[in-house]
């Protein structure tokens, strides 16, 4: 089944700059959402802004560590003292909440899931998006990772899959040519798709599974 990919968006934000970026995009709306959810929303919203369109939206994202730092805060600050966790600290430990926050911003979200994936398992995302497109008009797919240190940027990469062709969209299909495909990872497959501007298809592989991304013109 062919699907179409729009607006591959690669966001890298230095940890020190992150609060200002969130404030600039969402004012104070996300003050209590937790950093992982904020990071998801910042990238997802940028992708949706670039892609446009409407219709039922699935939201599917992957992470290796999820809301690691919210969990760390809850464990270190509350549980070590033997106290109940602060509500917003606890809620922020659940990475899945980012989907609801997107729905609360007037996007017609009908289903969401957060996957924990190893680096080479990124093809699970377009495959699952393909399935979801049986019920959704669009599926927003992301790879999100909080930085563990000041010198490394936060990552929030997103793209939008659609059933139907659209101006500027790439045709995406599973490829049988896994051997000739380049190895890609959860961290770099969306940035590589975003940077691809040649007429020939881009063939990327993760594990045994390969995908072809080609211009639709």
């Amino acid at each position, binding site marked *: 089944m062919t699907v179409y990919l729009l607006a591959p968006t690669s966001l890298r934000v230095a940890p020190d700059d992150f609060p200002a970026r969130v404030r600039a995009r969402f004012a104070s709306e996300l003050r209590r959402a937790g950093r992982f959810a904020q990071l998801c929303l910042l990238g997802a919203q940028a992708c949706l802004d670039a892609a446009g369109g409407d219709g039922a939206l699935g939201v599917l994202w992957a992470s290796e560590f999820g809301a690691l730092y919210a969990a760390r805060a809850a*464990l270190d600050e509350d549980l070590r003292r033997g106290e109940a*966790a602060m509500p917003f600290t606890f*809620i922020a430990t*659940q990475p*899945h*909440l980012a*989907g*609801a926050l997107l729905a609360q911003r007037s996007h017609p979200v009908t*289903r969401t899931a957060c996957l*924990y994936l190893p680096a080479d398992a990124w093809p699970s995302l377009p495959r699952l998006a393909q399935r979801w497109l049986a019920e959704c008009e669009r599926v927003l797919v992301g790879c999100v990772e909080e930085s563990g240190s000041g010198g490394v940027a936060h990552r929030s990469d997103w793209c939008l899959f659609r059933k139907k062709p659209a101006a500027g969209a790439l045709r995406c299909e599973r490829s049988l040519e896994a051997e000739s495909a380049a190895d890609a990872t959860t961290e770099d497959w969306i940035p590589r798709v975003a940077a691809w501007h040649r007429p020939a298809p881009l063939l990327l592989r993760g594990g045994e599974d390969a995908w072809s991304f080609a211009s639709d013109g």
Partner: protein
Amino acid sequence: MTGTFVRAAALASALGPDLDSAVERLAGAPVAPARNTKTGGAWPYFAIPISGGDWRERAEAIARSVAGDLRREAAIEPARWAELPCIVGSSSFSVGAWDEGGWAALEPSFEFASRLARAFGVRGPVTALSTTCTSGLSALDVALGLIAEGEFREVLVLGAEFCNRLTVAGFAGLELLSATAARPCDRERDGLVLGEALAAVLVSAAPSPWRIAALATGMDAASVTGPAADGAAIASAMRAAMGGARWESAAVDLIKLQSGGGRLADSAEANAVRELFAPVPGAVSLKGALGHTLGASGPAELALLLASLARGRVPATWGFAERDGELGLAPSGGDAQGVRRVLFNLSGFGGSVMSLALERAL
């Protein structure tokens, strides 16, 4: 008959280390959960009666025990078993390891899911996902897709939730817990009681007694921690499940409620049920007996319900004693003869709402 079927299921829960003991105990008098000192001791908690080793060793021991039960029931040849893909749903994965071992004991969620898969003796692809309390049914949803596309004929689905202080402290902080007992749909209900479970469901393209007729998902974004009071998103998911199964509402014989004893959440689900059904069919909640097992609750309650029905009983709803006039629901157990179509509800934090349509196939 074509589609996807529940070939086998197994469960370790507070009701017992295996499904047989759980069904037997559920048929008897209700037993109150103990206060669990491992989670701070302040709240009742439904713990699996298996002990030994550190947190991770205990989780693996529970997994091996459930795996043995599932393999016996599934009766799949070893080579086919080893190739099974495994989809793991959980809201907390290995966060409980922190309780004893600190940061060094924590591992990424995918690695913990792979650890569980290895304990089951399967080497196919592993997927780990979280949609909070609906995680286990979301895992089932992924499995249904793999079978429908013909990639696999059988898929192992795990719902895993193991004892941890973070979850209990979080629900306590949100003031969602009862200090005494879970009383689903009861007039005196005052909150949830949490629990742990490991449930395994083997779904297959080969016909078995229960067919999965449809699984519908929805989003209720009214709040990240609870449903909208009118239950509209829950009603919409139930309607979509019945539509997918091509049932009229009158065809539903039994509703497995999400209801866990929360005042608002039970009320929202009751509003949804009353919107779709008149009269309301038989209903049951299992959270008074299992506790709310969060990401494991889908597979855990599915395993327990189908095993009870196979033994001819709709289980009683532990904790329900007095009808709440505003809810208009009175879950009750009884003879399972005539129960051919079941609507199975689940919802969770983050607005995730799911409804599963099950029908007898054999």
